[in-house]
C-alpha cells in the first residue's frame, strides 16, 4: 500500500521534473525571440507565421523556425477539425496577430510586401480580415 503510493509519488515527481526541464530552455529561447521582436529583427506576418526582418543570431533563427513548425502543426490540427485549409487557419491567425498582438514599434509584414513598423494607429489589415457585420 505504502509502496504503491511511493511509486506514484515518485512517478509524479519525475514527470514534473521532466516537464520543467523541457519547458525552461524553450522559455529562455523565446525570450531571445521577444528581444528580437522588440529590436525589429523578427516580426509577425499576415500569413500567420513569424518572419525574419533583419539579421539575427543562429539561436533566434532556429527558435523562429521551431515556433513556425509548431504553429503549422497547430494550424493543421485546427484545419482538420473545422474542415478548412491550413492556409485559411493561418490567415485567420495572421489577422489576429496583426490586429491585436503586434505592439507599437514592432515590425510586421503583409504578403510579400516590405516590413513595416507599427505606429500609434491600428494596422491596415488585408481585406479578408474584415470582421463579420
Amino acid at each position, binding site marked *: 500500500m505504502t509502496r504503491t503510493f511511493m511509486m506514484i509519488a515518485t512517478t509524479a515527481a519525475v514527470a514534473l521534473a521532466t516537464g520543467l526541464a523541457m519547458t525552461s530552455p524553450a522559455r529562455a529561447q*523565446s525570450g531571445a525571440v521577444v528581444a528580437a521582436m522588440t529590436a525589429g529583427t523578427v516580426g509577425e506576418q499576415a500569413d500567420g507565421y513569424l518572419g525574419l526582418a533583419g539579421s539575427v543570431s543562429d539561436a533566434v533563427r532556429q527558435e523562429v523556425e521551431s515556433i513556425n513548425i509548431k504553429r503549422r502543426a497547430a494550424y493543421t490540427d485546427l484545419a482538420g477539425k473545422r474542415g478548412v485549409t491550413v492556409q*485559411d487557419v493561418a490567415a485567420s491567425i495572421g489577422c489576429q496577430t496583426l490586429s491585436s498582438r503586434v505592439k507599437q514599434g514592432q515590425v510586421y509584414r503583409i504578403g510579400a510586401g516590405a516590413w513595416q513598423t507599427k505606429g500609434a494607429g491600428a494596422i491596415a489589415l488585408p481585406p479578408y*480580415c474584415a470582421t463579420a457585420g
Partner: protein
Amino acid sequence: MKKRTIMMAGFAALGLTGCIQVKAPDKPIEINLNVKIQQEVVVKLQRDAQDLIQNNPELFPQ
C-alpha cells in the same frame, strides 16, 4: 415618338437574328468570389484563432 421607333427597330433586329448568342469568356471570372469565400472562412475561424493563440502562448511570443 422617336424613342418608340428606335425600340421598334431594335425588336425588329432581334427578330431577324433569331436569338442572342452569348459567348462564354475564355477565363473564369471568379476572383471576387474567391475573396468573399475566404473572408467568410476567416471570419468564421476568428474565435478559433483567438483560442489557439491564447492556449499556446509559447508559440506566440509578444
